[in-house]
């Protein structure tokens, strides 16, 4: 086997409160495809960001062709011959294909002006090398996602990249487009490039990869030739920990059916989502990122109204056309990105907390500040919001306290059903435990909870029942106590059953 083109030795990276990578080593060989495998949050993106110079590791060493390198910026990583193709392409829609390929290193003529003709000619060459007959003068916005990926590959080649990182390149592609992409990957391999391939889909990994590196909780838990493992072994490596003890579950009596959802569908994102939800019950919704869980629950909440299906709340058939319909009926949805989608930084704590059902505080013609204040104080204290006073603007609060205010806002609507979308994403372990405890408390108060989470231990620790979604549809349902991590991940990734 040829010498590795790039090695990482003992690389670690921490963020405040979170250990993203610990002592990870790997090496990439020219002409081989290495699959990077792991659950969401296992550290795959952190490795990509270290390799492309976006993060600097706290410890460890990067060697390119045997020589130790420090990447101070993405430009250094390019110069060292490392290029990444991102999941959602990061490009300039309004510019041409050629400008996108050469952005940041456009060829210039003797006068210092951009050599447009030369740039177009070289772009055409690069695109021809990967059999992608896209006119270089075409505006990027008129290309499909698959074609944009090809332009990104051409951009990587324009840097003479020795290492090409592909971060979930197939997520938005059709079967034919995936075939084309894999043909190009095979060609790049034959030309001696080292390729890092990140995907959640096992069939793709087994089809294209030569080697694998498996991460879990920021540590490397396995590596070797892909031929030495099967799907079941990989799933076990990814999950591999006793999860049931992590979060002590509150015992809550489960009551009658509150919410009944039948065949929830829209045109492009989710289809035939059906479930019953009982008082005090926590229903987990697990799946890979992009499985349609958020979209389906946003449909239920009226953000992107469903086109088919029925929703019944406490025996009453609802017609939900907008979030205000859902709020009035007693459904709350706490969005995933609570800062961007939830907090209004320019307003105060009181004004944020009362915003989702202001009607409740109207007496006569006008809003009653006293009523608003009573509710703000009640919820602010219950959630232990730390602030100088209840009128303080959210912009002046810490991120954790902003999140608490957003949750308080949704509790102020006195919901019967609350949907929590990734409630612990991006928060440290200590706060996570507090959030988990709080979710148990909500169920204990008789709320019916839908918990969208991509963290297996979290859903397995909290949920009474678990629905797994894949590609916009429910694929399996598990009851608490009658599930295993392997089965759940198997259902979410579509790993073959007989192998598990």
């Amino acid at each position: 086997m040829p010498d590795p083109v790039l090695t990482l030795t003992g690389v670690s990276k921490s963020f405040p409160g979170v250990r993203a990578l610990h002592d990870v080593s790997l090496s990439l060989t020219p002409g081989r495809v290495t699959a990077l495998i792991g659950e969401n949050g296992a550290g795959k993106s952190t490795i990509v960001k270290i390799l492309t110079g976006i993060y600097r590791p706290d410890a460890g060493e990067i060697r390119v062709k045997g020589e130790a390198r420090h990447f101070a910026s993405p430009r250094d990583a390019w110069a060292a011959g490392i290029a990444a193709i991102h999941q959602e392409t990061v490009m300039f829609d309004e510019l041409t294909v050629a400008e996108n390929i050469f952005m940041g290193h456009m060829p210039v003529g003797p006068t210092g002006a951009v050599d447009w003709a030369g740039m177009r000619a070289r772009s055409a060459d690069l695109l021809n090398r990967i059999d992608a007959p896209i006119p270089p003068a075409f505006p990027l916005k008129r290309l499909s996602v698959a074609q944009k990926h090809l332009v990104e590959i051409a951009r990587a080649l324009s840097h003479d990249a020795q290492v090409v990182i592909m971060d979930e390149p197939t997520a938005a592609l059709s079967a034919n487009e995936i075939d084309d992409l894999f043909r190009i990957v095979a060609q790049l391999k034959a030309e001696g490039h080292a390729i890092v391939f990140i995907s959640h889909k096992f069939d793709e990994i087994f089809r294209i990869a030569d080697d694998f590196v498996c991460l879990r909780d920021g540590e490397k838990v396995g590596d070797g030739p892909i031929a030495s493992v099967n799907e079941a072994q990989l799933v076990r490596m990814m999950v591999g920990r006793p999860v049931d003890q992590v979060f002590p579950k509150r015992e809550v009596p489960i009551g009658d059916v509150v919410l009944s959802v039948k065949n929830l569908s829209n045109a492009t994102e989710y289809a035939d989502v059906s479930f019953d939800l009982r008082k005090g019950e926590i229903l987990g919704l697990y799946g890979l990122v992009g499985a349609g869980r958020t979209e389906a629950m946003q449909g239920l909440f009226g953000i992107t109204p469903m086109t088919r299906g029925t929703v019944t709340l406490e025996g009453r058939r609802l017609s939900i056309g907008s979030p205000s319909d859902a709020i009035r009926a007693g459904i709350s949805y706490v969005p995933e990105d609570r800062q961007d989608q939830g907090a209004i930084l320019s307003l105060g704590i009181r004004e944020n907390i009362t915003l989702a059902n202001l009607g409740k505080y109207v007496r006569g013609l006008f809003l009653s500040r006293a009523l608003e204040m009573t509710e703000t104080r009640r919820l602010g204290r219950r959630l232990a919001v730390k602030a100088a006073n209840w009128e303080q603007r959210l912009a002046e609060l810490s991120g954790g306290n902003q999140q608490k205010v957003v949750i308080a806002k949704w509790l102020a609507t006195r919901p019967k059903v609350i949907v929590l979308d990734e409630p612990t994403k991006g928060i440290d372990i200590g706060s996570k435990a507090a959030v988990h405890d709080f979710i148990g408390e909500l169920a204990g108060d008789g709320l019916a909870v839908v918990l969208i989470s991509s963290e297996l231990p979290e859903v397995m620790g909290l949920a009474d029942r678990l629905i797994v979604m894949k590609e916009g549809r429910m694929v399996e349902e598990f009851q608490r106590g009658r599930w295993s991590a392997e089965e759940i991940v198997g259902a979410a990734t579509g790993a073959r059953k007989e192998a598990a």
Partner: protein
Amino acid sequence: MTALLKSRELILALILAIAVAAIGAYDSVFVQWQNISDMLTETSVLFMMALAQMVVILTRGIDLSVAANLALSGFVAALVSQYYPDVPLVLMIATGVAVGLLLGMINGGLIAILGIPPIVVTLGTLAVYRGMIIILAGGDQVNASEMGVEFQAFPKQAFLGLTTPIWIAIGVTILFWLFLNLTRTGRGFYAVGGNPVAARYCGISQGWQEFLAYSIAGAVSGLCGYLWVARYGVAYSEIASGYELTVIAACVIGGVSIGGGVGTVAGTVLGALFLGIVNTALPVLQISPFWQMAIAGAVILAAVVINARAERRPDKLILPEARRLGRTSRAMRRAGT
């Protein structure tokens, strides 16, 4: 709210008080009641126009057509007075308001329903509304002698020492304060401008809030159109030309954030008052008219720079001692703690 009053509005009020005192010391005519009354009457239209513009800016929008709307609505009201002199005054004023409202609703519809950017829509309607005056007038104008006597006398009458435009401005200001601070719809403007996505999740319709904002701006422009035309006794296509910029300047000086979601009634009123004082003081100070525009502009820029500094991301209260004191670390450093 009290914290906000403590900072920006209070500072602005202090600057105003100092300026008035200083100019008054230079020339006591400036602080005589007659001069102050004239200045307030002159500025009353600006108070109302700025408050309405603030609502638009709160939603992350801008309305450049307000002065053109004022001119067209005022012109229509003057036509009614010219051709139907027997119509009661209230109806003449209502005609101005109704025309203004309609023009505002056109803006609102184009912006909220068709989703065209506000600056483009209102730049277009600005030209259309001014153009319509020329068409209606056939290039002519309505003069004082053609308008009704009562029509022109109303803005010059005084009750309890204040002229009617001042009373109307006070009434409109109170209505705006109640509307913005004590109603759901009023709160909605702040929510939509502060974070449109979060507002949507709360069931607040951005389109409806925008439509309302431009409609309000239109109705207020219509009311001010009547006051303007009746007070100055002339209606033609160029009245209040460029006045939209003065209105927006009053908002910005008053601390309304062009980025949306931030602005108070008190701040905007002070911003308008500030411009009113500057415009009245420059002649008193015997500054050449050639310089007045440049100086007024420089003053506006200075106010905007001060505001931009105030709009920097505030320090967060993360330290427990800071939370207890309720002060930012900058303030604590200054206090030497």
